[in-house]
């Protein structure tokens, strides 16, 4: 069914137990990473703002299961899950969140700027919509270099009201670029319901008006996300130009870790949590006789706890490294 090149697994049917188990493990690792980071932030171990993606794991896991190492992704400010699903190491991510030596960015980026170019993760982004022009440019560059790799651009529903959304979609369609846009629609732009600030019928209509077609799925159904991503990426890889995957999901937490989200309607939160992508897949897997789910849960918890402890004990970066990696020529060296 899938023409996916370079992907680790090619089944998109949702019937392959091993693949479903892998999707489950990815989601559980993301959930555990985010919960552990949230605890560490509340314990004042992590400085600065922290945006977690609890509840949205199905999108990152389902999409990235269809990517190979050479494929690239761009992400946004809520990007831990995307990085993990693309193959970034949890340990180096925790070190970066803690601002410690050995973190992905040497402590210069933090939560909002996790990048791992070695696995094709071209960076989270602190500016909403910031990843869209970068993603289409990466796709243009790859096309120019005759690469078979493609680009996936993760962004939220809040991004559709900034100009670069229009520019980037028009551009990708115009030049038939190998990019899959993934709109992770959690319904809320920071603290504001996206529907209350968005005219018209929404992201799919806007995309289609710019010549970018795609699929809209329940983003908390990872099997559906996986299948849709496989289908759309097959189109992208075969030179069909850009596609969009619209994945409806729910953000369980506030905008940042310091936002208790008391402003949200309790019934809405309860309904959102009832759609938990991990619980849903767990039920499916249990029905199909998967046995090692508790082991997966425990392994993820242990892994993230160890990453947290290691990061907490790690060295701070040497202060003089603040002067590194600005530019080759004209770099300042005053301390």
């Amino acid at each position: 069914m899938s023409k996916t090149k370079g992907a680790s697994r090619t089944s998109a049917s949702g019937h392959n137990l091993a693949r479903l188990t892998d999707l489950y493990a990815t989601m559980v690792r993301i959930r555990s990473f985010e919960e552990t980071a949230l605890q560490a932030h509340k314990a004042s171990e992590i400085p600065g703002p922290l945006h977690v993606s609890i509840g949205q794991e199905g999108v990152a896991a389902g999409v990235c299961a269809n990517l190979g190492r050479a494929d690239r992704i761009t992400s946004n400010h809520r990007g831990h899950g995307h990085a993990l699903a693309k193959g970034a190491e949890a340990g180096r991510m925790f070190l970066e969140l803690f601002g410690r030596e050995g973190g992905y960015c040497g402590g210069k980026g933090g939560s909002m700027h996790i990048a791992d170019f070695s696995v094709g993760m071209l960076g989270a982004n602190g500016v909403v919509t910031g990843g869209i022009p970068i993603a289409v440019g990466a796709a243009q560059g790859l096309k120019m270099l005759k690469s078979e790799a493609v680009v996936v651009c993760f962004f939220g529903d809040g991004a559709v009201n900034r100009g670069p959304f229009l520019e980037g979609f028009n551009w990708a369609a115009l030049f038939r670029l190998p990019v899959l846009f993934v709109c992770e629609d959690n319904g809320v732009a920071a603290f504001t319901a996206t529907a209350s600030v968005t005219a018209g019928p929404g992201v799919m209509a806007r995309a289609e008006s710019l010549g970018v077609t795609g699929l809209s799925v329940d983003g908390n159904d990872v099997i559906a996300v996986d299948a849709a991503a496989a289908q759309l990426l097959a189109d992208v890889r075969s030179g069909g130009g850009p596609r969009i995957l619209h994945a409806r999901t729910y953000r369980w937490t506030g905008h940042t870790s310091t936002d208790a989200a008391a402003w949200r309607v309790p019934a809405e939160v309860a309904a959102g949590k009832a759609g938990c992508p991990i619980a849903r897949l767990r039920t499916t897997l249990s029905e199909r006789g998967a046995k090692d789910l508790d082991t997966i849960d425990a392994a993820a918890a242990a892994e993230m706890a160890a990453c947290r402890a290691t990061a907490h004990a790690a060295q701070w970066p040497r202060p003089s490294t603040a002067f590194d990696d600005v530019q080759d020529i004209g770099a300042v060296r005053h301390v």
Partner: protein
Amino acid sequence: MSKADATIEVTLVDAGRLAVQQEMRRDPTVWVLGEDVARGGLWGQYRGFLEEFGPERVVSTPISESTIMGAGLGAALVGTRPIIEMRIFDFVMCAMDELVNQIAKIRYMFGGQARPAVVVRMPHGMWRNSAAQHSQMLESWFVHLPGVIVVAPSCAEDEAGLMVSAIRSDDPVLFFDPKDLWPLTGTMPAGEIAPIPFGKARRLREGKDLTIVTWSAIVPKVSEAAASLAEQGVHADVLDLRTLWPWDEAAVLASVAKTKRLLVVHEAVEVGGFGGEIVARVIDQLGPSNVKIAKRLGAPRLPIPFSPPLENQIRVTVDKIVAAGLAAARA
């Protein structure tokens, strides 16, 4: 290819074109994107490129400045070397997130994983009564921005040599073409265009009475003024900085140590202009007792008006430069 001392006469716009052409022939990962570049660019900077390099490397884009800038960055992150043409400098305001928050930051905030090897071409300055949104010089904003190189040539030879350096640089380079000087002719060596290193000023005139530091489109006027000053017995040491970050502080300090008098002349608004930084550094480094006078001459803090007499009213003219030079020499 030709004798070492053979030279060619070219306009500034052709000098830039020949430099880009040379580098695109040398390196297949160099390409150009921007509005109307496939038809040669607004001033012929890319004339003949579509025919030679094809539409994948000479990409005429929609009027989408954010994505012109951001796509250039994205393409650099996968290993190409884009020349991002902004058409007219003033339009970069529509791409400031991509330039300031993304291009200038990406290497640093990712801990050195990324090298955004882009050249952003931004023809700037007053130009034939083009009014407030097509005439600005705001180069000082970008000298203030860590992570970028700031280049502002004033003659054909520097346009070419600095462009070669810019394209080969792994740092992002903001290249301010002096658009009022596109037709200015100059001579440069025939054959291979050699890179001109960043941070080296060009001495336009040697003198002992006064140091004049300048750059970009005002330079020919400064040269004319310096000749007039010489006729009046004031011999100025004139330095064209050519690049503003890095800038040739050593050359400026050596000159002012000799003349004790400094005048910085730029077309941009004087308030908050880069002249202020130069004056401050010179006094700081040489000590106030070793500098008799340090003055700036720039435009008044006004938008650029349209009508010729209004535009002329706020222009930094040869007469104003001569007057400022005489005042500084006699203070």
